């Protein structure tokens, strides 16, 4: 059954489109990478591959949305964000339309495509777009649920989506709500707040490592980065007094930035941040890169201990 996350994305769109003729799919010469060929086969008239032209893709998606369609437009996260930012900002968001922009291959998962293709800044950019909802599913179950939630949500969204590989964190029947984080493990000494396919499993492993050290770590899957689940973050800041954010992104601008801003304003608590530390991407295997950017479970556990030690 070993499905890739992209297959879940594509199949969910097909399923949605069966009952909703507003669903459209746009690609910029990465249909074969995103896996949406199945959509093209089922609904050829609702699939638009614009070629290598991301800005045009988002502009066209905005127009479709202006007429009531629900477009899902995808590219590698670097190009979905950086090459279309003004089109997405203005034509889609400022115009208050309903474009679902999908950025794939988050952070180190760009692997052999290297630094030019390694988005460590997409969430940071997107967080600056007023009212934009940003999600990053961590497993196949949450991917399907969140894509369905995205289709139902009225308003533009940025969906940061892992592409290849599968993992299971949730039960098939788990329910998800945009903007509501999931507590995967409860704990009392420190809270690991993670997002995405790479970092949520690392955070879970880190909690195991910490357990052996006698440290009780809570783990939260923050699948919605904006709007942040303030209530949950503050509850765990109060409960554990120390937080470590874990993201496959720069530590500024994204999840770590969002949590830091919230804590500073509402309830100052100790904070450590795992992710790229003001660095560009580079080429290599995911194994190599996760070590190079100090994002492994061991790194998280170390950061957690260092953060707690300041209590």
């Amino acid at each position, binding site marked *: 059954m070993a499905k890739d996350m992209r297959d879940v994305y594509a199949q969910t769109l097909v399923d949605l489109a069966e009952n909703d003729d507003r669903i459209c799919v746009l690609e910029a010469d990465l249909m074969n990478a995103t896996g949406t060929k199945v959509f093209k086969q089922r609904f050829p008239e609702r699939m638009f591959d614009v070629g*290598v032209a991301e800005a045009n893709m988002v502009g066209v998606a905005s127009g479709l949305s202006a007429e009531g369609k629900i477009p899902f437009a995808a590219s590698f996260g670097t190009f979905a964000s950086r090459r279309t930012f003004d089109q997405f900002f203005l034509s889609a968001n400022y115009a208050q339309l309903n474009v679902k922009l999908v950025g794939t291959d988050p952070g180190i998962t760009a692997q052999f*495509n290297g630094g030019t293709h390694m988005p460590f800044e997409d969430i940071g950019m997107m967080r600056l777009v007023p009212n934009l909802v940003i999600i990053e599913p961590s497993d196949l179950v949450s991917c399907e649920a969140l894509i369905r939630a995205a289709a139902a949500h009225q308003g533009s969204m940025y969906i940061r989506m892992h592409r290849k590989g599968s993992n299971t964190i949730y039960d098939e029947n788990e329910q998800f709500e945009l903007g509501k984080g999931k507590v995967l493990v409860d704990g009392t000494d420190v809270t690991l707040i993670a997002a995405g396919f790479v970092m949520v499993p690392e955070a879970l492993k880190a909690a195991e490592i910490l357990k052996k050290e006698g440290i009780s770590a809570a783990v939260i899957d923050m699948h919605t980065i904006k709007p942040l689940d303030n209530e949950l973050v503050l509850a765990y800041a109060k409960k554990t007094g120390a937080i470590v954010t874990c993201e496959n992104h720069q530590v500024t601008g994204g999840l770590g930035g969002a949590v830091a801003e919230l804590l500073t304003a509402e309830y100052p608590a100790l904070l450590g941040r795992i992710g790229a530390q003001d660095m560009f991407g580079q080429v290599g295997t995911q194994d190599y890169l996760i070590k190079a950017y100090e994002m492994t479970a061991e790194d998280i556990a170390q950061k957690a201990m260092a953060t707690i030690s300041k209590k």
Partner: protein
Amino acid sequence: MNQEKLQDLQDKARIVRIETLKSIGHLGVGHVGGAMSIVEVLTYLYYAEMHIDPKAPRMPERDRLVLSKGHAGPTLYSILALKGFFPMEWLLTLNQGGTKLPSHCDRNLTPGIDMTTGSLGQGLSAAIGIALATRLDKRGNHVYAIIGDGESQEGQVWEAAMSAAMFKVGNLIAFTDYNKMQIDGMTKDIMDIDALESKWLSFGWHVQRINGHDMQAIEDAVTRAKTVTDRPSMIVLDTIKGKGCTCAENLVGSHNMPISAEQLEEALTALGAEASAKGGN
């Protein structure tokens, strides 16, 4: 060119194919298709045309090349290694953690690479800037750029096209690798860019269209382009994606493909790899 030079360049191209496939094959996956389609043009430029010095990769008066379709970097790396810009052993580090040879061209990592590329559509604009600086500095060198046919769907390419003509960058010679394919299929089926010659002509460029695997035709076209000094030049190369690699030739799937040890072996044998292993320079 005389028969001897032609033979020599063709043989160089063969060796470049071999080294490029060895380097991608060593990793087991890579952009084989687009790397193979530009072997002849890059071999011609670096062995027979460009003013360069492996000992002084940044010398000011050198000719520049911007490989805008940066995913074809491995072909350029093979040539730069064969020419002595860096050790041949580097080729086997392609895309591995800490390498100086990343999948897409990087001017800071690799000696001999003039511009960082990888986000399609950006290289031609950079080449214009380099050509303008060359003119400001009153140097006589040329600037070459290579773009893909799929890449030509990016709007920025046409913004660059307009400005190169407006600024009359006569020292810029660009090539389109017209291999008729992109990732999702044939360019004519995905987003047709046809009438390429008239497109570039109407944007004010000097335009030629040739067989991109024919050394003589490449030489003739570059020689002619150099005589045009009041306009930028576009040379549209009719090429075959995956050219010369048995498991990749003329296949859309060759864009970024896994390559097994057996496939590599077969491809190298077809290229007569053994015979060339020694006299590689």
